């Protein structure tokens, strides 16, 4: 090795730089803690919630519409069930929805975007055209239609959201993969005889991962919000399963006297959404990508 070529082995690694900027970004850390708390509450709900029996069709008329006190920290609803318990279990439904939607929408959207960005010509035209058509459908109208045609329940709400959600990922990944596909290293791989599959999964996809993960985190917030909207409109989970959106809808009838019935689930939606948004913003700064 020639003496003049500087040794770069001690250079800052991207991983170190990303971790450094993440740990020095207070909002990202707060967001991460909020998300972790939501996940912990949801996963360990039966252990944490004070009245796990209030999740189902329990009735406790003696304590109905109780204001928050030391027995029921966040008060009770119209049949006397503990709202804190139901909010904690409500997180479960929200996260289930997030996982269900994103586990399908993200891979499909990313795969289509990847294909459209790498292959030009008709593949690109058809995929981007179809994506644009899907983007033109108002999500709420689509969900209402599906909810009315099929039975309104969690799975159908999930299907409705998924059907539209992949489009955003397709668009984003399309943009990124198109720019990466024109890089020299992709051409070099092709000249080395690499297959399309290899180029898509080994050369282009790894360079899209940071964008996809940031977008997915930000998406989680929107899915929670959208899921709550659907169940607020009565298209989500069926009672008595606790769901943040339908709890707001239930409590709404008793406003303004029984304010706790709306405030607790409303705040829970706000808390989860904000957590994912802050985390997503933090990741975006950390990976230095545009979403």
């Amino acid at each position, binding site marked *: 090795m020639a003496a003049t*070529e500087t040794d*770069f082995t001690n250079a800052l690694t991207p991983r170190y730089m990303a971790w450094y900027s993440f740990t020095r970004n207070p909002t990202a850390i707060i967001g991460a803690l909020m998300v972790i708390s939501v996940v912990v509450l949801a996963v360990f709900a039966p252990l944490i919630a004070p009245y796990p029996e209030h999740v189902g069709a329990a009735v406790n008329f003696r304590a109905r519409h109780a204001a928050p006190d030391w027995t029921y920290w966040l008060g009770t609803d119209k049949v006397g069930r503990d709202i804190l318990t139901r909010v904690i279990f409500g997180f479960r439904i929200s996260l289930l929805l997030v996982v269900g939607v994103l586990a399908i929408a993200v891979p499909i959207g990313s795969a289509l975007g990847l294909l459209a960005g790498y292959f030009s010509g008709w593949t690109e035209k058809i995929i981007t055209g179809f994506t644009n058509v899907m983007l033109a459908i108002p999500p709420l109208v689509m969900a209402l239609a599906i909810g009315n045609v099929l039975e309104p329940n969690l799975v159908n709400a999930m299907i409705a959201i998924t059907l539209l959600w992949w489009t955003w990922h397709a668009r984003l990944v399309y943009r990124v993969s198109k720019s990466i596909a024109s890089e020299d290293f992709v*051409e*070099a791989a092709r*000249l*080395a005889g*690499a297959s399309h599959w*290899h180029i898509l999964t080994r050369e282009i996809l790894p360079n899209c991962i940071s964008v996809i993960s940031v977008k997915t985190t930000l998406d989680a917030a929107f899915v929670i919000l959208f899921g709550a909207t659907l169940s607020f409109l009565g298209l989500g989970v069926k009672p008595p399963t606790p769901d943040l959106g339908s709890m707001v809808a239930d409590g709404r009838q008793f406003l303004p006297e029984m304010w706790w019935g709306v405030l607790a689930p409303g705040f829970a939606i706000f808390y989860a959404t904000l957590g994912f948004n802050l985390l997503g913003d933090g990741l975006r700064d950390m990976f230095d990508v545009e979403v």
Partner: protein
Amino acid sequence: MSELLKVDGLDVSFHTYGRRLHVLKDVTLAIPQGGRVALIGETGSGKSVTSKAILGTLPGNAKIESGRILFKGDDVLAMPRGKRDALKGTAFSIIMQDPLSSFNPVFRIGRHLDDVMRFADLRLGNRSSTAERRQRIFEVLRKVQLADPERVCAAYPSQLSGGMRQRVLIALSLLHQPQLLIADEPGTALDVTTQDEIMKLINRLVAENGLSLLMITHNLGVVRQMADEIYVMRHGEIVEHGPLSEIFSRPRQAYTRQLIDAIPPLYGANVTDQEPAAGDAIVEIDGVSKVFEDRPLFGRGHRHVAVNDVSLAIRRGEVFGLAGESGSGKTTVARMIMGLIRASDGKLRIDGKPVEEQRGSAAFRRKIQIVYQNPGTSLNPKRTVGQTLRVPLAFAGMRGKAVEDRIRELLLQVDLPDHYVSKYPHELSGGQKQRVAIARALAADPEIIVLDEPTSALDVSVQKNVIALLTRLREELGLTYLFISHDLSLMRNFCSRIAIMLRGEIVEAGEPRQVFETPEHPYTRALIAAVPVISDEEEKRKPAVSDEDRRRYLVDTAA
């Protein structure tokens, strides 16, 4: 001569990601009144940081640890903010490096110039009217040889050529008659002929207006034309300084000597002549043209003739150089030979068979491979050296231990140690990355390698090593090179045959000795004459260029 600017024991450190980088160590330099001083060094040596410290434009994470910067005896570092800002543009000003990104594309040139002038006037407390400023701007534009200031002012940055933009940048720095001009690699992004014009212009401006010049560059040929005194920087330290003639003829430091030796000579005793190859033609190109057309849905499309009726033959075992300035079509020719784009017209044959029939086949991959200009973009940042090298081997059907052995062999061939297989590109220097790129091209075991400006992104000393490696590989493996470059002095020494391209056509071809000693085409003469060289002897042996030819081929810079 009194000192206009003196930098005394300057220490600067950067704080990034919780680490402290000591980038300038005890830098001391002096610029005399009316003197021309050059600061030379390779990438990362701290040249630009020095100029930024003088100008007061260091980024926020930089800290001046100690030292003084004296301008006419006053320490600018101790000055209050306002007083220091008032020096910008009037005491010293900078000629920017990149003629394109220095302009905001949505504003007209006139607006850029007027803004700078207006704010400088405000800082100095002068009141000026738009019309009066316009007069002053026109005057400065004429000074930088832009003949039609009105048109230049009304143009958007993208409507001007690179040379014209560079001239406007020079005009920007001259708006307020500064006493010290700092030129940070001016013209590096431009073609040699344009760069030559810019150098001459700066030189004249400095001489006519009695300015002092601080020239920051890595190009020693440029230094010879533009400086009287030289400071050599390395790793943030000044390792040597002295008058130009002394540094060039009797460098004291090994590092300086190494820098000077790394520059390929254009003429003289040190020039290497490559043996002409006697083999049969392996690449034959016959009357090839390439027209880029776009046909929009509405309106008339554009037609751009990138390559026009080019014929050439590359013999087995030779280094064929394709020279030309940007936009001359040399890369397009190479991409057609590689089968990456189709020719609009004409025949391309490799080993007697048309490229069209072979492209994409495994046999064709063993014929021809490419090394790209920028190793930063030709290696996937998310893949290790080993993973990158495995691709061509795996797709050639190699499996298991054979792959590992071959990777080790390839790394050995390009002088990289074994353990580099697990390194990512960001852990490598530019030269090491280019070695990996060469190893990848070798992996397919090709007969021909297209070298698309393989060293233009590297420092000269690294370039020398890479060229030595390429020469050795050619001898060991019997390779044929198609070498694309705009660096004529490098091509003089490395190529066994060379062709000069101008606007899509080959204007001259032959063995380097003959082309450089007796260039026939006026463009070739103009091109060779513009190459910056490091000795007077070489300067004298350059071909003469008549003013008429200069006008004919170098028109676009001055408008």
